[in-house]
């Protein structure tokens, strides 16, 4: 009951005209950048970070959350019609969705993706509503030692477990932590890794790193392999209204996808790849027509698309309740909280109820707006998809420049932007994941802070991390997650 009352207050906040406008702007911008290949929610929110100096926190987070949800909807349009998924989590959607579009069923694929996203987004938000207060209760018992161990677990899962190579994932994670350490150490007042440059005393701005990796790096990568350009945009064909059979075959996958996606997203591990793959595999097993998979099975769009959106909703649970971001977008949202001087965590629900519940309520509203934006207005987004590449990437770099240059009108920032962009290019070419850089950069300094606090409390006794049961459990899980794959390959090699 308490939760429902809080949610009611949240709706009172979210339904004020000005906040409705922020939500509408957010979902519209979010859909647009989700549709545009090469742009993502992490980049967009990073570019918009400067507005945190201008508008109040509630409005800013309603806008950011709208972008976050909107990008999930928009991304499916691109993977269905263009077959170049914007992010790894939508690879599966393009697998079946693009085949459907080629067979003249593009409209039905877009419809099942949009409605599935709505179902998953809405039930995912219900999940946030009721799970968050429970996690908060639990998290109030956490001390610095537990937080540190939890962050170690998150580090391990986002870098070593998800993705193709544990070594490369961990390298980018450590690189991110290194970037996060640059500047004055807040506890001792000592400068670290500033290389004598006064510009670096305040640290490297996460905006520059995110824009460098996701805008400059991505543009370099695409320019370098231009001769391997993908095929063109497919037209939307067929009726936008799904047939009776389409509905019958979609409803199950929507709900199963949501059921798989939300819990995995809400775990401190995060990541949308695993639930989408799991949902695809599950639908293939359950389908009465498994032979259609790979040729455009509607279940293969409905399930993974729902799983993707539900896990995106799930990611907000550890972000809001524990201050633990498990995706690049969530990490940048966390840095937005920091720029307001707000620390996400269990206390957020007590100190900023209007902000938290207003944000959650706006997610419900945003989902309804997104369904309208993405079903009847899908033709508009298809037009955006047809922006020629030369103009699209020129425009992306203009916005990358203005976002970076606007921080302090310093060419040094542009130099850092280009260096990070070059590194981002190499990371893309040699298949290093980029998200751990952002997560390490934001979460690294927080983990260090908790490490030092825990050790101060225990008077320097490092066993504090293993004698406290919860902390020990979290560390044990992290260790297992690193070691199990290694043991697994050793065992397999011995057998072979």
């Amino acid at each position: 009951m308490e939760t429902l009352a809080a949610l009611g207050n949240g709706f009172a906040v979210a339904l004020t005209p000005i906040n409705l406008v922020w939500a509408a702007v957010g979902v519209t911008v979010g859909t647009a950048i989700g549709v545009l290949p090469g742009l993502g929610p992490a980049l967009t929110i990073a570019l918009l970070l400067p507005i945190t100096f201008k508008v109040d926190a509630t409005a800013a987070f309603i806008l950011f959350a709208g972008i976050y949800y909107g990008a999930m909807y928009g991304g499916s349009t691109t993977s269905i019609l263009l077959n170049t998924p914007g992010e790894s989590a939508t690879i599966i959607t393009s697998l079946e969705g693009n085949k459907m579009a080629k067979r003249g069923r593009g409209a039905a694929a877009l419809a099942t993706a949009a409605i599935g996203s709505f179902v998953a987004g809405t039930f995912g938000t219900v999940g946030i509503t009721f799970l968050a207060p429970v996690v908060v209760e639990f998290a109030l018992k956490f001390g610095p030692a537990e937080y540190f161990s939890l962050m170690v677990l998150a580090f391990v899962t986002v870098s070593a477990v998800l993705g193709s190579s544990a070594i490369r994932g961990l390298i980018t994670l450590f690189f991110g932590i290194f970037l996060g350490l640059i500047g004055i150490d807040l506890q001792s007042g000592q400068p670290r890794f500033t290389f004598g440059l006064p510009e670096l005393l305040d640290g490297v701005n996460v905006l520059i790193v995110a824009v460098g990796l996701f805008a400059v790096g991505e543009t370099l990568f695409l320019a370098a392999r231009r001769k391997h350009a993908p095929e063109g945009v497919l037209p939307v064909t067929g009726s936008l209204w799904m047939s009776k059979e389409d509905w019958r075959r979609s409803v199950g996958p929507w709900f199963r996808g949501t059921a798989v996606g939300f819990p995995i997203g809400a775990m401190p591990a995060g990541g949308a790849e695993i639930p989408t793959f799991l949902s695809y595999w599950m639908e293939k097993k359950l389908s009465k027509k498994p032979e259609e998979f790979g040729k455009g099975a509607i279940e293969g769009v409905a399930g993974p698309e729902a799983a993707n959106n539900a896990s995106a909703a799930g990611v907000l649970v550890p972000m809001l309740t524990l201050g633990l971001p498990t995706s690049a977008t969530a990490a940048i949202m966390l840095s937005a909280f920091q720029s307001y001087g707000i620390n996400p965590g269990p206390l957020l629900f007590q100190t900023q109820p209007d902000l938290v519940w207003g944000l959650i309520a706006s997610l419900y509203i945003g989902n309804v707006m997104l369904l309208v934006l993405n079903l009847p207005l899908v033709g508009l987004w298809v037009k955006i998809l047809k922006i020629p590449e030369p103009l699209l990437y020129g425009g992306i770099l203009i916005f990358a420049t203005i976002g970076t240059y606007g921080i302090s009108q310093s060419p040094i920032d542009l130099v850092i932007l280009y260096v990070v962009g070059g590194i981002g290019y190499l990371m893309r070419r040699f298949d290093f994941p980029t998200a751990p850089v952002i997560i390490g950069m934001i979460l690294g300094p927080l983990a260090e802070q908790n490490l030092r606090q825990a050790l101060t409390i225990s008077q320097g006794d490092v066993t504090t991390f293993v004698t406290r049961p919860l902390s020990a459990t979290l560390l044990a899980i992290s260790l297992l997650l690193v070691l199990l794959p290694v043991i697994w390959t050793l065992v397999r090699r011995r057998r072979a």
Partner: protein
Amino acid sequence: MFSLRWPQVAVASGVLLLGLVVLWQTFQIPVSPLYARIGPKVVPFAVSFGLIALGLALAVQSVTGRWTDEAELQDEPVDWPSLGWLGLGLVLNLTLIGPLGFVIASTLMFVCVARAFGSRRPLFDTGVGVIVALVAYLGFDKVLGINIGAGILEGLL
């Protein structure tokens, strides 16, 4: 199973080098005796050791050919002319944004980037570039109130 691949070796060496630089810089962090136990060096040391160890592991993988990834990416030829145009655009932007202002510098970058992506219409691109740059400038400077600095065209607005 011995398939040495030079680009991968170079990447691994880069990681190793970064780890060594971090280690060297960690020694440079001044520490007051008050923070002797859990001072500002603990995590930097961990990061440098991590990077060095991982760089070595990556080097082993690249020498033994156990570096598995999207193989087709590796053997793909790089489109150097495109990258060159893109690089030219970035350098022009960086050097001209101070003296000429954001709008002109970014428009020149836009034209170069468009060329990198195969456009053959520099005049048309200039027109689109000016419009995009002006929209970005007005949005950030006038609407969001973020100072983008002075410039020739900016002064007229």
